């Protein structure tokens, strides 16, 4: 019957005659596409992300090869003309060592150090939580993730409150005031930067590692034991290699963040003139050097992309032998016996260093008139509840009074929450397309490009978003000036968390459950609504919460894209610093951490999911 319906008039003599004409095959393919929106969705997502991620990046990076206004004197060229001046300045000029090479070296050292600290802390805690009967397991699994909810510089603040010596400005630390001299290497620079960032980022490793440990087929370990391998051999030869993908994945996440974090390194590095690429970038942005900013951004992005490539490569090699256990995976718990208490002690020590110390330091600072002075008359609650504070025209009362804090909190919840929701859904769709599209170009392109924002320091391209959206471009109206732009940009820049979680969750799920629904007669939307989203509830939650937590701490993008001073918690805190009310600024930071924590906790309770369940390995 196929032959009967063939239209002989249009058919050119082709070798594959029964396949139909080119036109009819095209019609067939279009009909397939119409019923299977994955590819279309994938292409739309790729286009949207290319525009939202690459366009501002290109805009920023193109500054590196153009003489910027005001630099015509130095570059000896007209503004706008092509130049290699900025590259020369960063890589070869007399200041290149200070501007680039030293910071590069420091960045590598710090990144490696932080990774080691994070892996050691996160890995051991993950093992305690998933594989042992350590006391208070359940409670610890929530508590040990909290450090990630604190803005990273709170660790620097706490560190200085403890270790600051009198060789730098400001108040000396507690140790010093007790007469214990803290040498410079302990108080500032490399060591504290590594420890503080390590404490901040170990939850990444904890979540990823814990997940992988939970998913490992314990039969694999058992079979090694039966073959006569000792505990240590099993750990070294079987468990560890199996954990490598999640290890490289968490190293990637930690490494990527460090490239762009400038708060902690700036505060801790400044007294001893220890700078990283990120602080170098921060200085360039602050002194409006667009050309140098662009070159440094390029370097950071290049390093970031190289790290991604290495990770992809490692992951591919490891996939050959990795079997993610399905049936054999058991919640096998080893009895710590008399080590239960000491193990709890170790976990509590991490909790103390990662949560109690920074939070307590911060909390203490909000009730002290002069920081670090322990005298009864130095303590006050007025920064929280005072009704009349002199000298601060913009904020003449404690943070809990008046409406500013509540408005800012509501704005944060509303804007960041909406962005996080979009992130979660888009992240899941990205995962969906990547898995459905299999090895096609769309899928892999989408996988890479949705992770790219992670490698671009927000401070470097926040301004580019403004240019991009201040005017109407094609179907996109001029969004600048409305809150929707802020939501959009926050969603894009925090998408990597969600897309990562979405991809890993969808990969694990595979395509069969959806195909089963398709065969059962369900259309695309029904499948998405009734099958995919409900099954992926956990991943979706993670894909919402992680962007939420990190979005809540976002500052540079918020500053650049809000217009009439829509106050968010972060901008409120920064403005309070300007009023010289550090106490109140810190109080707001505490509120941010509290909101993060409550949102995470409540979401997990309400959806009965676990933050780690969707992060994948």
């Amino acid at each position: 019957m196929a032959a009967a319906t063939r239209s002989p008039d249009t058919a050119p003599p082709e070798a594959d005659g029964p396949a139909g004409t080119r036109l009819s095959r095209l019609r067939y393919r279009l009909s397939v596409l119409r019923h299977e929106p994955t590819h279309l969705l994938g292409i739309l997502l790729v286009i949207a992300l290319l525009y939202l991620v690459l366009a501002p990046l290109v805009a920023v990076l193109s500054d590196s090869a153009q003489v910027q206004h005001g630099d015509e004197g130095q570059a000896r060229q007209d503004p706008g003309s092509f130049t290699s001046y900025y590259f020369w300045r960063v890589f070869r000029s007399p200041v290149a060592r200070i501007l680039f090479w030293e910071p590069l070296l420091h960045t590598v050292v710090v990144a490696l150090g932080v990774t080691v600290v994070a892996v050691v802390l996160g890995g051991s805690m993950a093992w305690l939580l998933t594989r042992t009967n350590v006391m208070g397991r359940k409670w610890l699994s929530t508590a040990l993730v909290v450090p990630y909810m604190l803005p990273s510089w709170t660790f620097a603040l706490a560190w200085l409150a403890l270790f600051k010596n009198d060789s730098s400005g400001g108040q000396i630390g507690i140790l010093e005031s007790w007469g214990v001299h803290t040498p410079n290497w302990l108080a500032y620079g490399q060591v504290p930067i590594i420890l503080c960032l390590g404490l901040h980022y170990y939850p990444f490793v904890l979540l990823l590692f814990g997940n992988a440990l939970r998913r490992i087929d314990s039969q694999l370990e058992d079979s090694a034991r039966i073959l006569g391998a000792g505990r240590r051999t099993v750990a070294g030869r079987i468990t560890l290699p199996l954990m490598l993908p999640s290890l490289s994945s968490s190293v990637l996440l930690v490494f990527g963040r460090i490239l762009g974090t400038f708060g902690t390194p700036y505060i801790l590095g400044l007294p001893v003139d220890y700078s990283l690429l990120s602080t170098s970038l921060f200085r360039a942005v602050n002194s409006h050097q667009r050309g140098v900013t662009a070159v440094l951004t390029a370097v950071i992005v290049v390093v970031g992309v190289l790290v991604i490539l290495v990770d992809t490569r490692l992951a591919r090699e490891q996939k050959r032998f990795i079997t993610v256990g399905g049936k054999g995976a058991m919640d096998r718990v080893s009895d710590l016996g008399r080590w239960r208490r000491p193990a709890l002690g170790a976990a509590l020590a991490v909790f103390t260093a990662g949560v109690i110390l920074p939070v307590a330091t911060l909390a203490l600072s909000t009730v002290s008139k002069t920081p670090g002075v322990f005298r009864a008359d130095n303590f006050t609650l007025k920064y929280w509840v005072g009704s009349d504070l002199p000298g601060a025209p913009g904020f003449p009362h404690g943070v809990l009074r008046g409406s500013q804090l509540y408005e800012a909190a509501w704005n944060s919840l509303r804007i960041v929450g909406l962005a996080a929701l979009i992130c979660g859904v888009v992240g899941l769709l990205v995962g969906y397309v990547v898995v459905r599209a299999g090895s096609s170009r769309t899928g892999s392109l989408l996988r890479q490009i949705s992770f790219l924002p992670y490698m671009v320091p927000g401070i470097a391209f926040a301004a580019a978003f403004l240019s991009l959206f201040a005017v109407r471009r094609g179907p996109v109206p001029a969004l600048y000036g409305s809150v929707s732009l802020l939501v959009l940009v926050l969603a894009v820049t925090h998408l990597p968390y969600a897309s990562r979680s979405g991809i890993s969750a969808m990969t694990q799920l595979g395509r069969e459950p959806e195909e089963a629904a398709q065969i059962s007669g369900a259309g695309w939307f029904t499948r998405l609504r009734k099958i995919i989203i409900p099954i992926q509830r956990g991943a979706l939650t993670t894909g919402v919460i992680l962007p939420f937590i990190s979005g809540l701490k976002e500052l540079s993008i918020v500053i650049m894209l809000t217009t009439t001073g829509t106050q968010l918690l972060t901008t409120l805190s920064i403005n309070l610093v300007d009023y010289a009310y550090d106490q109140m600024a810190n109080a707001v930071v505490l509120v941010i951490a509290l909101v993060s924590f409550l949102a995470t906790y409540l979401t997990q309770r309400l959806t009965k999911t676990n933050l780690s369940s969707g992060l994948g390995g």
Partner: protein
Amino acid sequence: MPSFALGAAPRSGGRRRRIAVSLVLAGALGAAAACAPSTGPTGTGAATDSASGAKPQIDSDFDLEALVAEAKKEGSVTVYDSTGDITETAAAFTAKYGIKATGVKSKVGDTLEKMTRENQAGNVTIDATFYEDGPSLVGQLLAQKVVYTWIPGSLVKDIPPSRQSPLQVLSKGNMWIYNPKLFPKGCPVKNIWDLADPAWKGKVAMQDPLGKPNIVEFFNQLKAGGEAGLRQAYKTKYRKELASGDSAAEAWVKGLAKNGPILTSSDDDATAAVASPNQTKDRVALVSNAKFRDVKEKSYSMRVCAEMQPWSGYQYPKYAAVATKTKHPAAAKLFVYFMLTQQGVDTQLGNGGLPGNPALKQGTFLPDGLTDWNKQLFVFDPSKLKSDFDNLQPMQDLWRLNHG
């Protein structure tokens, strides 16, 4: 550069190509670095030292009532400023004229970036700005006609010409302070050259000049207008002339940088380094006059180095400018006018300072030790702002290369 980002994306079968692209990129970077100008760039450039760009627009038919009426029609105005006081100013403005005003506190760099990009896109939300960074105002915002200077005709005669281009609305000060509890006899530093002398190595606290363009501008202004004062002070201290030909300011900046000052990320830390209750070291610091507000609150003890030769610090002005493409031109102008009146400027002089309009009274608050703003503090020359802008980076590099 964009080709790299694109090249990084496709995965299937593209790894080889991707690596090739990275190599090409690396090569390009190398080449770019190699073929750069072989001699270091030398400062000044071609631009003349006049506030080139836009000339101030003097509104000779200024009619306040008409302006108010027009502004009311426009309905609202948004003004960016680098101090939080702007919210007070905006509130006072609204109270006086019944026009909704939003004052937004924003760092100078952010304001610069936003106004430039808004202007390029033609979607302007910032109607006017009170702006503290003169060099980038003249070198970028005015030069690129992102903003213009507007002066009400009725006040032209009150404001000296030097403060008209750009229009100066007020000045505050950064000053050297010491701890009178540790030095009851007065400031241990009598001469600005002491700060560059090995005797004060590691004892000077200040904000990181690389994070605070304002300090670099001070260095540049010293180079342009402080030469005589610096040489005189040098002679007083060392009883000999500074070698002629060298720039006295550069010599001083070098010395200061080499002395490894305690650099802080905020004024607060610099203040605390000198004035906090349990601080015992011999130190001086460069801080803003606003920090004197903390004295009572935090039981700080601090005083301006009033005896310091030739100056105890410097004044830094704040300028007003109206966005060229504003949708609320009348309201923006009215806001600028308001800032030139006593009622307006008072909202920002709570911690002391000088109004730009000399006909107005200065802020009642005076930092301890300071008696005369204009005599004790080095005053910037507005005609040098463009060259300050051009020399920002060379001066930063001078600092960078000498900071030990």
